[in-house]
């Protein structure tokens, strides 16, 4: 056959389990105990409310720029839910629900978005890397983390998050290619929220799906309804298990939507329509999952109401803790901390001058 088609190693698939209309594919439904299901919902709700809470703070001038996650809770939570504590999570900058599930404290996040480096400090023993802002650049880290784990004979996996826009960056390509070559236990979770700031998905790349980019690396790719927490969970679980058992990396594309602005500095009205936003609101991952839990008898209006009240309290207390901590963070010399394990002499000189200057300022104020 002089001219003939070539079959790639894998086919790309699409997966949905719980439709936006609430219809369930019972055959594909993952088995999750009631308690876990409820924790899923609570985490998603907490993320949503925390987003709204932060937005309010930001509007009041009490918080800096942040990137809301509303609409993407199912993609984030469903992806990390199959992980163990000792697995690694490598976030970009919008993974609130993933952070919350993994145990990051709310006041840490508030501190971070109020411009305190202390807010980026990972909790003890956590294996979630801090926020990575340069788009796509965190992707290779996950490959390295999981390579090292395998080298040590540990069955940890690493899961990395990024957006649709990130798939255009060189580091996406290089990272996935390394994972394919070294067959590392890495799960690449692309939250395709349809937008990279003002750039719609269909102009970001001419490929029909992002999942099919996996074919370029000879690794499996799967596109999932990212507003369907069950589908995301099922796909992620499969990928995590494959990774853990030595079968290598997977690319997961979660089809979702950024319901809010890109960040609080952005105005989506300049580039997308109200109609589009409205249409996607119909696919809200929380609504759909709540109905599923109600059908299962695990939730009703009153349990949700209780949850909402608890969450409101939690948020208030978190802000109080954050405010208290910020009030205590008065030592400016911390800016010199953690540059190196040991401070070099010239930096020490600069720090000394800084201290002298501050003492001078304080004295002249006090005096």
């Amino acid at each position, binding site marked *: 056959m002089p001219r003939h088609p070539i079959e790639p190693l894998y086919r790309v698939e699409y997966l949905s389990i719980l439709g936006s209309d609430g219809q369930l594919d019972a055959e594909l439904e993952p088995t999750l105990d009631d308690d876990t299901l409820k924790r899923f919902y609570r985490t998603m709700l907490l993320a949503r409310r925390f987003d709204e809470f932060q937005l309010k703070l930001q509007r009041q001038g009490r918080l*800096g*720029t942040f990137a809301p996650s509303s609409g993407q809770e199912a993609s984030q939570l469903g992806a990390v839910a199959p992980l163990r504590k000792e697995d690694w999570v490598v976030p970009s*900058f919008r993974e609130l629900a993933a952070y919350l599930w993994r145990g990051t404290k709310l006041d840490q996040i508030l501190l*971070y978005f*109020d*411009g*305190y*480096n202390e*807010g*980026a400090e990972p909790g003890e023993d956590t294996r979630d890397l801090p*926020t990575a*802002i*340069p*788009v*796509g650049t965190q992707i290779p880290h996950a490959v390295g983390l999981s390579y090292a784990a395998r080298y040590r004979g540990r069955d940890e996996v690493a899961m990395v998050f990024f957006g649709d*826009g*990130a798939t*255009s*960056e*060189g580091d996406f390509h290089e990272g996935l290619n390394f994972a394919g070559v070294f067959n590392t236990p890495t799960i690449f979770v692309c939250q395709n929220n349809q937008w*990279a*700031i*003002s*750039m719609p998905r269909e*102009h*970001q*790349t001419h490929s029909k799906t992002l999942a099919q980019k996996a074919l370029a690396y000879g690794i499996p790719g799967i596109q999932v309804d990212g507003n369907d927490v069950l589908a995301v969970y099922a796909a992620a679980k499969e990928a995590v298990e494959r990774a853990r058992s030595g079968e290598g990396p997977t690319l997961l594309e979660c089809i979702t939507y950024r319901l809010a602005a890109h960040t609080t*500095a*952005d105005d989506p009205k*300049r*580039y997308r329509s109200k109609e589009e936003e409205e249409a996607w609101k119909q696919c809200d991952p929380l609504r759909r999952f709540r109905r599923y839990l109600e059908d299962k008898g695990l939730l009703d209006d009153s349990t949700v109401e209780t949850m909402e009240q608890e969450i409101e309290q939690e948020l208030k207390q978190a802000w109080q803790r954050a405010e208290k901590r*910020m009030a205590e*963070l008065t030592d*400016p010399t*911390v*800016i*010199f901390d953690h*540059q190196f394990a040991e401070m070099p002499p*010239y*930096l020490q000189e*600069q*720090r000394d001058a*800084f201290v002298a*200057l501050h003492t*001078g*300022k304080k004295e002249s104020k006090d005096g």
Partner: protein
Amino acid sequence: MAKLTMAEALNLALHQEMASDDSVVVLGEDVGVDGGVFRITEGIYQAFGEQRAMDTPLAESAIIGIAIGMAINGLRPVPEIQFSGFSYLALTQLESHAARMRWRSRGRFTVPLVVRMPYGGGVHALEHHSESKEVFFSHIPGLKCVIPSSPRNARALLVSAIRDPDPVVFMEPKALYRAFREEVPEEEETLPLGKSRRVREGKDITLISYGAMLHRTLEAAEQLAKEDGIEADVIDLLTLSPLDDQLFSDSVRNTGRAIIVHEAQRSFGAAGEIIARLVEHAFFYLEAPIERVTGYDITMPYFAREHEYLPDIPRILAAARRALST
């Protein structure tokens, strides 16, 4: 003459250059429909269409790489890197191609390209959004590095940069985008690249700065005049590379004392080069050590403490007074 912010003045320059020369195009992330995250390309897409206001995929190296190809084939692209902290992704394209193509092809292929990028701190931004790595670009032969300090000179310099036959990295001090307004003439105005300017006359000490720090430097100069009766000569570099060492050397030959103020980290920062030039050109006139008032050799802290990192008036005053008391 209208009173414009720097953001508006830059936008004016782009509108006018694009209207008068159809080889000028802008490209980058969110520069089209959205008008740029700082609105510097506001209205360009609407006025000139998507062929000339290209919303690109999220890929800095390709943005510059593609612009290089466009420039070789006769266009004058003005790519935007959304924040200078992401420009290192394109450094290979700048160092290994943009800066070298004229030289490599012995003048046959040229790259008249202006890479615009907001830089610097002071706007309460997230990590990587407040960086000042102008030295990366200034150290590369074949590249020019221009940093305006006011609406009017920003407009004039951007026009000159666009018309320049060689690649220019145009770093916009984002803290100044909307900090103040200045009269900017509607009619064309240019400023030569590679020339600094004296913004205040004085005989006692020379203060050298650029970008957003220039304004603190000027304020410090006024305070020195008021409180100490000291008259500072203040130089605004405007172009870092090729560096105009004549004006500041002349000044220091006159004053015998100099302070350099920039927000980039101190070690291996731009001030070192200026000091080296002063030592070359004005050594015998120096009466006191030249001090650097700069960012510390630390990573720019998150915004709650960025003011602790940035040079401020007390630091400039202290350095100047030390120099003057020598």
